[in-house]
């Protein structure tokens, strides 16, 4: 059980800044997910924690003790790699036993631990096979087993599910979560898949260009994204974002995009007025926070349908208003199609307002 802390950690590769001033605290027993697009520095951050890379500057602490100079083995971490990195010439048993042998553990103890772990993961029948004879899912389990058998202080996982097909990925996602609940080992998990992050994480750190954009619980990240990048990266379909200005018209406060206006209820007016009046902003709203109607209702905006995507349990309706495309969520029974007229209304309580220049969240 270990707490992992990064203090102002930077990593340069030549002139390229891969990790930029990262501060991160992963609590004992926590499942922390580093989420971001490829090249955002999440894997490098993980490798820094593992000890496979040395930080250019900054401190990495395990339980408050700096580990910058420690080799991976002395950090007592276990890592699961994206391609599993199983030793192809060794049997599954030897793959799992190697790190214990290196530590000089007695043979009987090694055998006991490997069998116990294999039992836990349901791979006991694979112990005598070589990695090449296993399916992707089985290899994945062996890679996991190799990490677990060492009883490490921290699990580091680098996109361990990305090579699996969709169905298996979903299953393993659940199993990994269950496993973490059972072992309660501090886990740092890297992924670019926001669903994986949302489902498994205790907390998520969203990264971009080597910097952490936001750290929070999955719900916080989803419902109060710190900036436009997080807002768009998390959620599928992504959040609608468009330029707007907040203006007053006599007593009423309005957000106007040029194409349509959104009236702000009096209860929210003061809060908005103080911070964004006459400022160029961006409005963000998630598809599920837009109501759709086939008939006109009070306060709804009329628009032409550009595209209807029915995914079975839901339909996503894309409206075209002037040049702005807005995606809204509707029940699968929604009947209209492209070119038809329909109506939508944005739930003002669910609006996110971002500064246009800094792209940071204002409200």
């Amino acid at each position, binding site marked *: 059980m270990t707490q992992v802390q990064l203090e102002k950690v930077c990593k340069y590769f030549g002139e390229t800044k891969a990790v930029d001033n990262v501060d991160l605290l992963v609590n004992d027993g926590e499942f922390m997910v580093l989420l971001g697009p490829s090249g955002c520095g999440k894997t490098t951050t993980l490798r820094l924690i*593992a000890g496979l890379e040395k930080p250019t500057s900054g401190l990495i602490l395990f339980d408050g003790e700096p580990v910058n100079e420690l*080799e991976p083995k002395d950090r007592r971490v276990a890592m699961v*790699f994206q*391609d599993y*990195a199983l030793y*192809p*010439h060794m049997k599954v048993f030897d793959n799992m036993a190697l790190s214990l042998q290196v530590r000089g553990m007695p043979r009987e103890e090694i055998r006991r631990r490997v069998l116990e772990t294999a039992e836990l993961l349901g791979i006991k029948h694979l112990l005598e096979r070589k990695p090449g004879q296993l399916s992707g899912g089985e290899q994945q389990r062996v890679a996991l087993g190799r990490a677990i058998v060492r009883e490490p202080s921290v699990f580091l996982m680098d996109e361990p599910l990305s090579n699996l097909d969709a169905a298996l990925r979903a299953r393993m996602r659940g199993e990994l979560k269950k496993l973490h609940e059972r072992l309660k080992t501090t886990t740092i998990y890297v992924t670019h898949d926001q669903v994986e992050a949302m489902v498994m994480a205790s907390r998520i750190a969203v990264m971009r260009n080597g910097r952490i954009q936001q750290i929070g619980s999955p719900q916080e990240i989803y419902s109060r994204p710190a900036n436009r990048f997080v807002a768009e990266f998390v959620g599928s379909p992504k959040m609608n974002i468009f330029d707007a200005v907040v203006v007053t018209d006599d007593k009423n406060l309005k957000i106007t995009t040029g194409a349509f206006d959104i009236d702000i209820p009096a209860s929210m007016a003061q809060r908005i007025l103080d911070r964004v009046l006459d400022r160029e902003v961006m409005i963000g709203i998630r598809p599920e926070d837009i109501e759709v109607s086939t008939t006109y209702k009070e306060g709804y905006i009329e628009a032409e349908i550009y595209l209807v995507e029915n995914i079975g349990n839901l339909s996503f309706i894309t409206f075209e208003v002037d040049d702005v495309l807005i995606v809204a969520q509707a029940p699968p029974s929604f009947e209209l199609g492209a070119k038809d007229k329909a109506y939508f209304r944005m739930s003002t309580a669910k609006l996110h307002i971002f500064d246009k220049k800094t792209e940071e969240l204002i409200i």
Partner: protein
Amino acid sequence: MLSQKAKIMKRLKLLALAITLLIISIIMIYPLSWTLITAFKTNRELFLDPWGLPSNPTFENFIKAVDRGNMGQAMINSLIVSLSSIFIISIIAPMAAYATSRIDFKFKGAVTNLLIAGFFIAPHAVLVPLLILLRDMGLVDTLLGLILSHVGWHLPFAILFMKAFFVSIPSSLQDSARVDGLSYYSMYRKIMLPLALPTILTVAIIMFISVWNNFLFAFIFLRSPSNFTVPINLLNFTTGRYGNDYVAQSAAVLISAIPTIVLYLLFAERIRKGVAFMAFGR
């Protein structure tokens, strides 16, 4: 109409290709088959009918080549030199290739370039300095001197070849071994070496053929006939006592080719892949 013409053109091209290949094959096969036929003739038969088949095939020439032409001793010498050379190369080359491909150390670039530079030097350029070096070490006219020269000479190629392999191993395998707590040496011995064995075998086969056939080094560094390797021992049959004994000479040439032919028959696929790997890198 056009497609008809295109078809004819395509066929003509194929025909031209077939004829060219046939001519090349004949050029290649002709001396070999002539040697093969001649090895079973008597000298008298050879001069009476140079192209004809042996009327009464005899193994006399082979016995003569081994007994009187020193071919037996030469074969043993060649085997000692070739096997020892590839043994040493097979130990050093993978280690050097692994270190220069996968481990970061000071002056790695310079060391790598120096190792590989040897690949681009013509053998004639090093003959004199090498001879002086061997003389000073008292290794002229010894098999050990020849072995060491072959090892040094062939290492750059072997390292380059092995490097291509080590670079192709996913780096996550090494990372994984590091996390497992393996030192660089155990990583090499337990993970990399077992994986590299097939490539090492390929390099060893190619090296064996090259060392076995090498004439220049043996010609310059060896003096006593008892130390002669096969390629220079064949000179026995072109000058002096056996100067005109073409039939024995043919038998000797065939004997000298046996190991490489056997090796090729056993490992044809591996050699073919190795040569393709040299040319195309994969």
